[in-house]
């Protein structure tokens, strides 16, 4: 690990201002992904701003009858919150499908959104990677790509976003609340929060320098059957090959988002018009234009079958 100086922030505004004025600064909350990457010198911050002391660990009901989830709410606490379990079961399920008990106790809501890809070439500092070293090339393209993205990819990067939680938040139309170094705040729809790789895969979100996530808000409960189905190589503690987050209403309408297939949680609202027609019709639109590799072509039929199983479960 490279040396770094350390400070504990005392307010969100102060943390954001400190991050903007200190070169090489990064926020640390749970640290489960950042520390791992720092040990490998994939992340090399020269200053860490510990935000754990900020009072951002509450879940509150909003005037719109939704929920405002503090950025520091741990994944365990979010999944276990009675309101989340009752009204946003999709979110509980997605969180519980991710990581291990130990990691969920540490990892935060905001940190989960900001975790980096687990592409093995991103992790291997001996290999070129446009995400790790912009302009160096992509070792995954032409490499071993079983875990990689099939849709929304670019010639610079075919990595996936690893979060389960983010897939549920995409289906739920969550909003990311932030504070900027100048003290102003903004609300970013989750749909716009993560970026596709394009020619700058090292820029993964629309956050500006020093901008700090303070909360995630959920709109009023949507009801319906909420199902998160994750398909992976082990029954527990593994990243998704494919995951499906679905909200299905009694009349068969609803929403679908996918994990494990793209650089961001993948949702195509137009595809949801096909919900009453079944998994094949939805998948055709969801994954239209998909460019799988030889290694991960299985993900396209796997999405269709997993979605089919989810829709069947929703009817039961």
């Amino acid at each position, binding site marked *: 690990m490279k*040396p770094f100086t350390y400070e504990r922030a005392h307010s969100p505004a102060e943390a954001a201002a400190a991050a903007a004025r200190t070169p090489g600064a990064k926020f640390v909350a749970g640290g*489960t992904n950042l520390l791992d990457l720092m040990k490998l010198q994939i992340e090399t911050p020269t200053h860490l701003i510990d935000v754990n002391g900020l009072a951002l660990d509450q879940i509150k009901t909003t005037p719109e009858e939704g929920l405002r989830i503090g950025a520091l709410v741990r994944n365990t606490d979010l*999944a276990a919150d009675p309101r989340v379990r009752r009204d946003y079961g999709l979110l509980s399920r997605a969180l519980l499908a991710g990581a291990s008990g*130990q990691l969920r106790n540490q990892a935060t809501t905001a940190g989960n959104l900001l975790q980096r890809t687990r592409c093995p070439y991103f992790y291997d500092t001996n290999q070129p990677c446009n995400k790790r070293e912009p302009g160096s090339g992509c070792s995954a393209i032409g490499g071993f790509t079983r875990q990689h993205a099939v849709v929304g990819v670019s010639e610079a990067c075919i990595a996936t976003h690893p979060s389960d939680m983010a897939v549920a938040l995409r289906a739920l139309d969550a909003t990311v609340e932030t504070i900027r170094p100048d003290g102003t705040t903004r609300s970013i729809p989750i749909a716009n929060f993560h970026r596709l790789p394009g020619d700058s895969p090292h820029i993964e979100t629309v956050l500006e320098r020093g901008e700090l996530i303070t909360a995630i808000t959920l709109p009023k409960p949507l009801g319906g059957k909420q199902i998160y189905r994750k398909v992976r190589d082990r029954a527990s503690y593994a990243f998704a090959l494919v995951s499906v987050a679905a909200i299905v209403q009694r009349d068969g309408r609803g929403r679908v988002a996918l994990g494990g297939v793209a650089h961001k949680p993948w949702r195509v609202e137009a595809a949801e018009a096909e919900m009453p027609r079944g998994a094949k019709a939805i998948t055709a639109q969801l994954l239209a234009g998909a460019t799988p590799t030889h290694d991960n072509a299985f993900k396209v039929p796997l999405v269709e079958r997993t979605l089919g199983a989810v829709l069947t479960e929703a009817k039961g």
Partner: protein
Amino acid sequence: MKSPSDLDLSRRDLLVGTAASLAVTAPPSVANAQASADGSQAAAVEVPSISKVSFTVNGLAHELELDTRTTLLDALREHLHLTGSKKGCDQGQCGACTVIVEGRRISSCLTLAVMHEGRTITTIEGLGTPDNLHPMQAAFVEHDGYQCGYCTPGQICSAVAVLDEIKAGIPSHVTADLNTQLQVTTAELRERMSGNICRCGAYSNIVEAITEVAGRQG
């Protein structure tokens, strides 16, 4: 047998030594002096940053001055000589470093010691002693919940916290209904313990040990 505090630094320890031990042998002032002695290398010399942290481990208060890079695991093992917590993968995948902080199990390798100011930490050494085993330790012995024993401190810390999590009503991936009372089942224990890897494959005995303790706790 030497006590843990008498541990000598072997050549291997020095080679694989943590940043923290480096700080002891080369304090910042020395590193700075070296940097200024050879200006051409000044930019390449990385000066460790030292920070203070206070926390309670197994009932004892400690105040440490640490290289900020020191993980909680390294602070426990290398500075407090509590070598029960093990370094397996050092990247949060194996669970050998599991300790209990403020009642919650965490991977001590993926958190910095300085992030735990004022916290209360329990390691395997704080759960029981050879003469007075924690019920979970006794159950692991009785059910042969290990072979080599390397993962065992992490397994036991995790298992103790798992039963507390079930009591607290925290659901898991295999919980059928998110809105009903939780049961201690084999499926629940296996899912909840999936962050603790046992290369000897003692899993079925580990589940039996935890099940027995859960049964006694009612």
